[in-house]
């Protein structure tokens, strides 16, 4: 490959510029949505501060030798698990979930770090031998690595983040090249767990589907029975867990399944979010001129519902530009992942992409009303130090890989 000494050769502007613009759009939206809220007026400055810190972190990560990520995989993973344990003991409870660690006056969410930890450890495990993942043992280990943090995060309980992890595991296994049967083994318990939340009939229909699928795959009877037993166990365990939970935790889970059951809670936000975006029209109502935003119809809009601010004040133009920037960023990371010859690097990049993408699709899907209300932030845009730092660290890894791509691609 011909060596190009332009800036773009070592530094992927295609990654950095969209992310930076998204951050700026986020800043504008945070400014607008916190302008009249006495409890949140400092958030704009805080986000600026986090932005500065995350840019420094970005460049630190960017300049590291690429090989260090593999080395750091196990320590990062273990450290994040430790943090998840610590937060369960001494964490701060914010809107029902014990997911925050107080750190020098600033809040920090260990689950953000754990996302990176799981990406690195799974990438390291799956790339251990350069062959396809085909043994039941490998799948079990991979899933277990991912499930340890999921269990800890569910205990907080932070449902939104645990969904990101589930998606992450599935995408990484898929990218590694799991067989259809392997995918079935991984997915069926998850599907059954979710279906058990909806009730007995859903759970039983799920079980019937599992049995039918097992017959189709024609694996040996003992193996099939084990899979079935695991499925059954997961289902019962989930419903048992649900009953063991406290009242307010149960309510959160129920309103997640059925938002209209709680019209003044999650359902209210979903309705007001749609009104905000829809009323924005083509050109928007103008910066600082959105009634839904300025009159605070959506609580804590600067975090998970930030896309409404863009939709209301900058209209379809604003929402489509934001979509375009994400699309460009995702395609860029996907290309990088596809061209990476090193399997670890490729898996890390696809893990990063899936974290970005799951956050993005769940968050935007939620505010436009095609997904249930799951409280997770929009990368680069939402207010929040942990989320921004995690996104920028991951962007740093991607940029790092780009810098040394000649060695790895």
């Amino acid at each position, binding site marked *: 490959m011909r060596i190009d000494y332009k800036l773009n050769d070592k530094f992927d502007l295609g990654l950095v510029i969209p992310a930076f613009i998204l951050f700026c759009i986020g800043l504008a939206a945070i400014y607008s949505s916190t302008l009249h809220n006495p409890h949140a007026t400092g958030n704009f400055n805080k986000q600026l501060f986090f932005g500065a810190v995350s840019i420094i972190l970005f460049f630190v990560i960017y300049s590291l030798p690429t090989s260090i990520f593999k080395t750091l995989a196990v320590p990062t993973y273990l450290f994040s698990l430790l943090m998840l344990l610590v937060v369960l003991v001494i964490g701060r409870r914010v809107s029902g979930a014990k997911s925050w660690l107080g750190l020098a006056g600033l809040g920090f969410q260990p689950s953000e770090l754990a996302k990176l930890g799981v990406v690195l450890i799974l990438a390291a495990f799956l790339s251990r031998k350069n*062959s*396809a993942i085909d043994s039941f043992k490998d799948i079990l280990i991979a899933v277990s690595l991912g499930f340890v943090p999921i269990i800890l995060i569910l205990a907080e309980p932070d449902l939104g983040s645990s969904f990101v992890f589930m998606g992450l595991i599935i995408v990484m296994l*898929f*990218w590694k*090249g*799991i*067989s*259809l049967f*392997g*995918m079935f083994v991984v997915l069926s318990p998850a599907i059954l767990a979710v279906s058990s939340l909806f009730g007995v009939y859903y759970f039983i229909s799920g079980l019937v589907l599992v049995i039918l699928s097992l017959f189709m795959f024609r694996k040996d009877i003992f193996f099939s029975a084990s899979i079935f037993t695991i499925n059954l166990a997961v289902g019962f365990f989930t419903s048992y867990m649900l009953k063991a939970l406290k009242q307010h935790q149960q309510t959160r889970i129920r309103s997640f399944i059925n938002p209209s059951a709680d019209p003044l809670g999650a359902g209210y936000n979903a309705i*007001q979010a*749609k*009104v*905000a*975006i*829809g*009323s*924005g*029209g*083509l050109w928007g109502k103008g910066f600082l001129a959105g*009634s*839904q935003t300025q*009159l*605070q*119809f959506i*609580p804590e809009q600067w975090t998970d519902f930030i896309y409404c601010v863009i*939709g*209301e004040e900058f*209209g*379809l133009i604003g*929402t*489509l530009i934001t*979509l375009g920037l*994400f*699309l460009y960023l*995702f*395609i860029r990371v*996907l290309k990088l992942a*596809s061209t990476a010859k090193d*399997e670890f690097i490729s898996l890390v990049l*696809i893990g990063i*992409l899936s974290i970005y*993408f799951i956050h993005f*699709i769940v968050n*935007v*899907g939620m505010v*436009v*009303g*095609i997904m249930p209300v799951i409280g997770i932030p929009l990368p680069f845009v939402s207010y929040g130090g942990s989320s921004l730092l995690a996104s920028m660290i991951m962007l740093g890894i991607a940029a790092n890989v780009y810098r040394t791509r000649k060695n790895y691609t």
Partner: protein
Amino acid sequence: MKTDNFLSVTRESVAYFVIIFSFALLGFRLVQMQIIEHGAYDEKAANNAIKGIEQIPLRGVFYDRNMNVLVSNIPAYTVRITPAEYDTALNKLLEAVLDFEPGYIDKVLFGNRTYSKFVPIRIKRGIDFNAVSWLEENSANLRGVDLIVEMQRGYPAGIRGSHMFGYAKEISPALLEKGKVYYKPGDLIGSSGIEKAYENILRGKKGYTYVLVDSRRKEIGRFKNGTEDAPSIKGNDLVLGIDSDVQRVAEEELFGKNGSAVAIVPKTGEILAYASAPDYDLSAFSYSTSKEYLQKLYIDPDKPFFNRVNSSPKPPGSTFKVMEAIAALDMGVIDTDYIIVCHGGQVFGGRFFKCDAVHGPLNVIHAIERSCDVFFYNLIYKIGMDKWTEYARRFGFGQDTHIDIGEESPGFIPTGASYEKIYGENWPRSIMASLGIGQGEVNVTPIQLAQYVALLANDGVTYTPHIVKGYLTSDSSRKFMPFSYKEINVGINKDIFAIAKEGMFLVVNGSGTAAASKSADVQIAGKTGTAQNPHGKDHALFIGYAPADNPQIAVAVVVENVGFGATWAAPIAKKMIEAYLLKDKLKQREKNAEKKISNNLIGAAIAH
């Protein structure tokens, strides 16, 4: 990587597909929400954020004919409850402070249960000073209770005008059902008198101010700096034909009695005074009537709410004789040379009908002057039953006058047919003798009498009696817009009226029945009447006008259960006439009297 794994070849394509598909889906969804369904969402956002607050306009005020304010608007406190914030544990306390019977507030809240819990409900208007200060002091403990200043009616001229002015009160659910387009619960609506009859002119037009509210419906500022606001338009002010001085005299004179007094401008039909007694105090009655006062009014056997002017038909007595004289003269069955000799009574149909005195020979003029019954017993037989009925109706009796306010009774003018119905074809014609002196089945209302005397004074032509002359536009020009009223013309020659009026002149200024009410300053013409009352003392009546040669004012007075018209009704009429025609003279006299008193005082002071 092996190719036999699940989708291994197309993994990258699958990833691209998922990403592109998701973005396309979101893009379409955004276009759908922000372009296609934009209107609906925009409306929802506006409903969320913009609240229209009704601005209740000032009701129009009433002026009298000299542009003195009779009915005004004065600020008063209203207590309101916002159900969403209110704790019904406060009921007992509030009911005690606001002078309500226990359970009242619950009843009001229940009555409003179908409306928004966030809209304040008016509990009481025009609360007194003690209650205001108590509420202000304890406002911290009275969540959901607030005080606002609203306008209520004031009566600065010292004129009661209860039945004439009427009152506005909170709209009833039944009326609300009919008037939904304009009225909302808690709105005031004219309920009687002028307030009711001229509701549409008086109420003005509600306005709206738009405010921004946050997610808790708390006001946080004006919407677009108030540029979209629609200001309320004040109601039109009414100009009444009422003369305050005449009205005041009528009310004072009727005080303590049961009866009516109406003064009217003969040429125009404008009512100068309109009084029905007993009455009630509108300023005490408006909005915040005390339980005791209301109770008293309702159980009063004299029925203070009853509008006697419009709705109390009584036999007209001798006042009817003028009409009969005119009828006979117009028909040509008599002339001024027609004489009847009064022997103090006469037999009709085997029954003796007496006269008040032995009048001797009288022509029609003197028969009116002396109110000789024998003359008119005979006259009605000359007129005949059917013609008598016809002439009575021509003078407006037996039918609504269509006065501009209130309900009215048409009274009753018997016909030959009505007697046939009761007694058969050969009904005793002796009945007619009673009718001849305005007794018996004939019933007329005071307002009909007023219209009648106006017709007499103005030689058979007047206009529908009316209190309101017109209104002033509510814009800055304040243009006077007169209402037009129907002309009434009995179609009888002036000369015939002149004959009857000569008699009426003599009633007061000759040796007539009301000679005692002769005025030193103005020539009054009139006719007394005493209507027999089977339930007690007779009703006293007087109709009159002045000045006799060029009538400016016509008056009808009815005082119930007192006796002779000359004794009880004529003096009231005289005072009303003088109040109107001798306005300046009377005022000068008052001034002189004051001067005299002060001079005496000064003199006394010097003497010491």
